[in-house]
């Protein structure tokens, strides 16, 4: 096996033998079968784990947003055909398919939720945070989006309309927050540092220039 370097048994203090949890055993069993039958290739699997654990993260999405802030042509494409726009940056594939970008404006704030099964644009946002997958978050966001935002420390003007979008297996959303003031002339790279994962789900706002230093 190729995954024994994982610290799977650091919780056990048995004098004899090793310990794996029920979940670890089942995962290994499934992996063994899939490898034996040739359904997965161990190197590819390791690479995938690595990508989703480390490489692909909210940074891809942050680049998309930063580009939309500085490049009007890209911005137009992003809102017309999100999948094509992120594809043009080399992102997408896998579950990044059928991505719709939602534009935050002074009057409209977008929030994304999946009330069914936690669909999430992995390709641009990496893996979803734990709370995104919890039933209470999903249910409360739909019923009381302003209250949820308050829990996240976000207070929006009273006249800002909050739109909640329900993602599905075929359709995923990326919120494009408003560009913070005081960032005129900034490079895409520097702007991307302001874009947080939560701001692209709609549960947060981008960082302000003063937050970087």
């Amino acid at each position: 096996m190729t995954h024994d370097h994982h610290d799977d048994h650091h919780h056990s203090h048995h004098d004899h033998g090793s310990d794996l949890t029920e979940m670890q055993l089942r995962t290994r069993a499934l992996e063994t079968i899939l490898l034996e039958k040739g359904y997965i290739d161990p190197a590819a699997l390791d690479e995938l784990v690595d990508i989703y654990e480390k490489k692909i993260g909210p940074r891809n999405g942050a680049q998309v947003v930063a580009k939309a802030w500085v490049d009007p042509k890209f911005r137009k494409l992003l809102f017309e055909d999100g999948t094509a726009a992120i594809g043009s940056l080399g992102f997408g594939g896998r579950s990044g398919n059928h991505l719709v970008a939602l534009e935050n404006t002074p009057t409209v704030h977008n929030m994304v939720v999946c009330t069914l099964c936690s669909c999430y644009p992995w390709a641009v946002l990496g893996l979803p945070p734990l709370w995104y997958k919890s039933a209470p978050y999903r249910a409360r966001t739909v019923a009381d989006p302003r209250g949820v935002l308050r829990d996240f420390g976000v207070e929006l003007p009273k006249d800002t309309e909050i739109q909640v979008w329900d993602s599905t297996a075929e359709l995923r959303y990326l919120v494009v927050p408003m560009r913070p003031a005081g960032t005129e002339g900034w490079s895409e790279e520097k702007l991307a540092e302001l874009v947080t994962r939560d701001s692209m789900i709609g549960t947060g706002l981008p960082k302000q220039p003063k937050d970087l230093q």
Partner: protein
Amino acid sequence: MIDQAAARRAAQEVPSIPRDADGPVFREPWEAQAFAMTLALHERGLFTWPEWAAALSREIKRAQAAGDPDTGETYYAHWLAALEQLVQEKGVASAETLHRTKHAWEHACDRTPHGEPIELKPDDFH
């Protein structure tokens, strides 16, 4: 847009939302493994994302009906169960094979001194 009334009915009163403050989304390596296997099988065309969503949703509903609070902590347990279910439905492996292989791993665990890499050997299947 969402059917607000239906969602409101489902809404539960909770004191606060579980947050991770940008922390790791996988709590344990097996979760990342289960996730990666799913992506690999999808790439191979074993199932479509709508099929996956349906399978996962079934598992979550089953768990909720059995009293699972679904706070996010047990999410990958449901994920793994859905994957096992789909693998069976698609004829990749029977429930018996899954069970037998899991027991082989258990056996491998028992005979491997603590701290050493656990490897599966043919003798573990019996």
